[in-house]
């Protein structure tokens, strides 16, 4: 019973409310970053796929650079280095910006390889029927590629949601951050807080992967 005592002690309505506030920040940052990085990553992935001279090469350099840097470094850079050149952002904005930059690069690669996986004959069939390149992409290639890309895209979204916790280093008041504040009060709070924090992350991410599985089944 000694082991359970801190659980009972720490699970107060105030603490729950505080954790949920943090979780709200986590979800907000993740949701905005997901939407932004899906748009930007989709655009970059498509532009690279289209092999537009100069543009595609330039994007390749940028994407490769970002993909090969640790996310933590990008978060630090956004919050601590950018103000040095006059770009200042508040914590939440900085976290969203850093996550969006990183995840856009990751997503663009998923989208590019998904587009590449569609056989060239599909493009030829579309073009031969008089559709222009954009129409062929939009009505023939993208819809097919997107179906194939659902599982890797969702798993990237799950990574993103978990990666928001890295923003504790710039003191983003997210779930993990608020958890830390609670257990800082008393050593015995650590395990009960971690349990509840882990549960919250798990439930949302697991729900996401269930959605992905549903979508996958629907296709086949």
């Amino acid at each position, binding site marked *: 019973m000694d082991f359970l005592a801190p659980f009972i002690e720490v699970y107060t309505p105030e603490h729950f409310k505080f954790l949920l506030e943090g979780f709200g920040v986590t979800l907000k940052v993740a949701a905005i970053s997901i939407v932004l990085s899906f748009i930007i990553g989709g655009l970059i992935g498509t532009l690279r796929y289209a092999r537009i001279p100069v543009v595609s090469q330039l994007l390749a350099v940028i994407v490769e650079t970002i993909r090969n840097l640790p996310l933590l470094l990008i978060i630090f850079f956004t919050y601590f280095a950018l103000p040095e050149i006059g770009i200042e952002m508040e914590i939440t904005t900085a976290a969203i910006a850093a996550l969006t930059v990183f995840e856009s690069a990751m997503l663009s690669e998923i989208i590019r390889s998904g587009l590449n996986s569609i*056989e060239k*004959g*599909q493009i*030829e*069939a*579309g*073009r*031969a*029927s*008089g*559709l*222009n390149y954009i*129409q062929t992409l939009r*009505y*023939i290639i993208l*819809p*097919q590629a997107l*179906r194939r890309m659902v599982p890797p895209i969702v798993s990237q979204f799950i990574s993103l949601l978990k990666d928001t916790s890295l923003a504790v280093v710039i003191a983003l008041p997210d779930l993990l951050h608020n958890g830390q504040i609670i257990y800082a009060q008393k050593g015995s709070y650590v395990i009960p807080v971690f349990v509840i924090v882990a549960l919250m992350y798990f439930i949302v991410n697991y729900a996401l992967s269930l959605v992905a599985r549903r979508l996958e089944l629907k296709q086949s």
Partner: protein
Amino acid sequence: MIVFNQVNKFYGDFQVLKDINLTIKQGEVVVVIGPSGSGKSTLLRCINHLETISDGTLTVNGISVGDKKTDINKLRRNIGMVFQHFYLYPHKTVLENITLAPMKALGQSEKEAKETARLYLDKVGILDKAESYPSQLSGGQQQRVAIARGLAMKPEIMLFDEPTSALDPEMIGEVLDVMKTLAREGMTMVVVTHEMGFAREVADRIVFMDAGKILEEAVPAEFYENPREERARLFLSRILNH
């Protein structure tokens, strides 16, 4: 209608098409035969600019195909194409496969496009499959859908790139029958095929290619009875006596 004038094409140092001169008239059915790698598919694919030519001129209805000023999408609307591997859109139903280009490239209404699509599906004998997905059809049925898809744009020219080569033998007949009907109705057709029976029966002219060159052009009777070129004789003896 289609005029190749001294057309050459290179892939790097390799010459795929050599000094091609060929004129195809309206309503003519031209069958291109030859060993694999002889450039016959490339020749066909140049007509709708899926391949570019390196030099010479190629015109369709007097319009230069490779010219930068040519609206290639407009030109292509007038040229239907059927591929060896069908290339139906797997995420769309049979009907949607056929209505896509008429709606998006010609701006037809959905109603109009569907009516036309049903008309051609009926023509190729698979109206009952309108709501199916390509994966639910046999190869022969898929290829007939592909033909209907080409026809729905009401093109003046139809190109066929080995349309029966990927089919099980028992399905070849149903596709060839559709093509024969088209030929009889006066469609201008350029067909790359190994189906000698079809060529003999339907073609107005046989074009024999080898190593990127047109070696012989003749009416079928003449070509099959008495090919002028030694290479053509050898090819025929191999393909007919197997």
